[in-house]
């Protein structure tokens, strides 16, 4: 064996050891940032370079951003950016081929950090994953040096390793971020609306990234209740972010234009087309009147909800969808009005519930129709999910929102609210609805409202210190009496101020029996009022 062959052999062994150094399986447990730093250190060692840096592609801005660097870390601290196609790294990114610079003095290098630190020679390779450009990896030396093909091959091997790690981290981050974003944008729990029983199911689809399904239910100052369910076209972080904006837009427009859901959708549509051109979303918006007697619905390309009214059979609301949000349409959006008698159920959903590969949509819709009954909202949700999803993991997001109007004739009213003045009118509105539903005469409604109003005001004014607490109201029918129980968990205090005693007197005049129970756990006032229909003398 000649001396030169021996040295070649040793060089090959060194190469192998170098390769092992930069691809060692022990690196697998590192997070992406530690991995980048570790690989950059090793490649610097192996190639005997002074600096090593990774620049990742910021595609929307067509720039490379310094993400990790060893030797000249300030490149990262300063957030150095290189436009695609310009300079050393920019050219590597544009051509997706390795490149070298023997002497920086003769070259077009965008990043002054390299020059300032005395870097003379550079070798760079593209970071590619599945043919897609992720960024650029380059090494540099202070001394003049001519990098050869072996150096480029070794650096490319490190680049491939980095590309793998970055891809995995990016998709993992995207998945986690979009799931988190979506979760944070959906209501944590539905608000308690006295007289409406609501339940929801939400399943993030399979396939890793979340979609843009959403739902919302909120009250408006007018006493109306707005219910919305929608679906933003697309998946991942962007869909989740657009979903958040659409949901906020529906809230804002419902606040400003309380009557007609078609107007709400029109304005949300304008907003989406102006601020998020190119995005598309479907939605159905329902506005329940303050009396809960009627609901107005409008659809932007969203499947029609189901309604179970008096007769017990579910039917799809006769709601012709207008174009989705984000799609320019000429015609005015339409809305329909449905009666919502006590006990009626409305079922909103997204297409993930009814679309299933290999099954006819009409069959699935019929399956859903049969699953929806005039039962409590939680039960309806369970039945629907059991029959339509069953044991099969959905591939798409599924949102299901069921709302049932309580039936006062058979169900007591329960309301718990913060003991603040703003709660008073909401509590009275709920009690008023309940009384009207049981057919109470106007004088009975007036008097029971007075008794409830005075006793709840009393809790707001007297039961708690500045830390506050809650006021709970239960109204039930013990025919021929209406029995109202007002509870707090505070400490009893005798009324103060110029109003003292008047409220109590009114409360007593407006009812037949008032019983006050004071305990360590709080105060409970029970008000009993015989209804006029039962032959009460005025």
């Amino acid at each position, binding site marked *: 064996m000649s001396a030169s062959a021996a040295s070649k052999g040793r060089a090959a062994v060194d190469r192998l050891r170098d390769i092992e150094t930069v691809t060692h399986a022990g690196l697998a447990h590192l997070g992406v940032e530690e991995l980048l730093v570790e690989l950059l250190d090793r490649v610097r060692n192996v190639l005997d370079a002074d600096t090593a840096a990774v620049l990742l592609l910021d595609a929307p801005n067509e720039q490379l951003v310094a993400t990790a660097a060893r030797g000249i870390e300030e490149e990262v601290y300063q957030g150095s950016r290189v436009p695609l196609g310009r300079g050393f790294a920019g050219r590597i990114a544009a051509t997706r081929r390795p490149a070298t610079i023997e002497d920086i003095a003769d070259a077009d290098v965008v990043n002054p950090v390299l020059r300032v630190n005395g870097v003379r020679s550079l070798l760079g390779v593209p970071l590619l994953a599945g043919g897609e450009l992720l960024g650029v990896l380059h090494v540099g030396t202070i001394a003049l040096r001519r990098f050869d093909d072996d150096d480029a091959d070794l650096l490319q091997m490190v680049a491939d390793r980095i590309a793998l790690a970055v891809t995995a981290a990016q998709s993992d981050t995207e998945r986690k971020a979009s799931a988190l974003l979506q979760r944070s944008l959906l209501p944590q729990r539905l608000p308690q609306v006295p007289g409406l029983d609501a339940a929801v199911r939400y399943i993030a689809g399979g396939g890793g990234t979340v979609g843009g399904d959403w739902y919302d239910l909120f009250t408006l100052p007018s006493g109306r209740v707005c219910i919305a369910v929608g679906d933003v076209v697309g998946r991942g972080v962007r869909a989740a972010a657009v979903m958040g904006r659409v949901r906020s837009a529906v809230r804002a427009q419902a606040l400003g234009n309380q009557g007609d859901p078609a107007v709400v959708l029109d304005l949300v549509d304008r907003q989406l087309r102006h601020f998020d051109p190119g995005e598309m979303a479907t939605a159905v918006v329902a506005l329940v009147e303050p009396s809960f007697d009627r609901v107005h619905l409008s659809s932007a390309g969203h499947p029609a909800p189901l309604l179970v009214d008096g007769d017990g059979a579910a039917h799809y609301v006769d709601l012709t969808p207008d174009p989705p949000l984000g799609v320019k349409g000429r015609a005015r959006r339409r809305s329909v009005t449905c009666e919502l008698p006590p006990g009626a159920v409305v079922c909103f959903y997204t297409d993930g519930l009814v679309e299933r590969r290999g099954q006819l949509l009409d069959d699935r819709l019929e399956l859903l129709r049969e699953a929806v009954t005039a039962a409590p909202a939680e039960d309806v949700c369970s039945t629907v999910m059991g029959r339509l999803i069953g044991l099969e993991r959905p591939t798409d997001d599924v949102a299901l929102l069921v709302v049932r109007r309580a039936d006062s004739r058979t169900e007591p009213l329960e309301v718990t609210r913060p003991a603040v003045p703003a709660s008073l009118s909401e509590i*009275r509105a709920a009690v008023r609805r309940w009384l009207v539903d049981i057919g109470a005469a106007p004088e009975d409604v007036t008097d029971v409202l007075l008794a409830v109003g005075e006793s709840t*005001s009393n809790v707001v004014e007297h039961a708690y210190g500045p830390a506050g607490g809650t006021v709970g109201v239960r109204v039930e029918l013990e025919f021929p009496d209406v029995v109202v129980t007002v509870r707090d968990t505070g400490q009893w205090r005798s009324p103060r101020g110029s109003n003292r005693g008047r409220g109590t007197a009114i409360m007593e005049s407006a009812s037949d029996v008032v019983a006050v129970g004071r305990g360590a756990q709080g105060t409970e006032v029970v008000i009993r009022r015989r209804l006029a229909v039962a032959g009460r003398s005025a």
Partner: protein
Amino acid sequence: MTDARVEAAVDDGRVRIVVSGEIDLQNAGDVEGQLTEAISNQARTVSIDLGEVAYLDSAGLRVLFHLVERLATLQIAVELVTPLRSPSRRVIELSGLAALVPLDPPA
């Protein structure tokens, strides 16, 4: 949120005020402010129409008691328009305010 509207018209020393909506602990202070704003010292008579008030309780009564007392001091006549069997009529009758101020229609 409790909502009430106060609308006032002045005609040669006669102030006519129409209140509508609901009055409770939350907005009684606002309503009081709007009522007192509507009445200047030039007023001779004030009529407050409560026919469109859907809810009125002791918080609102306190406002009315105050106002009636104050107007008596200022020698401005006041009457309350409150239809029979209306929510406001009921609570005014229960409260004894009727003894201090004329009601239309009369008790």
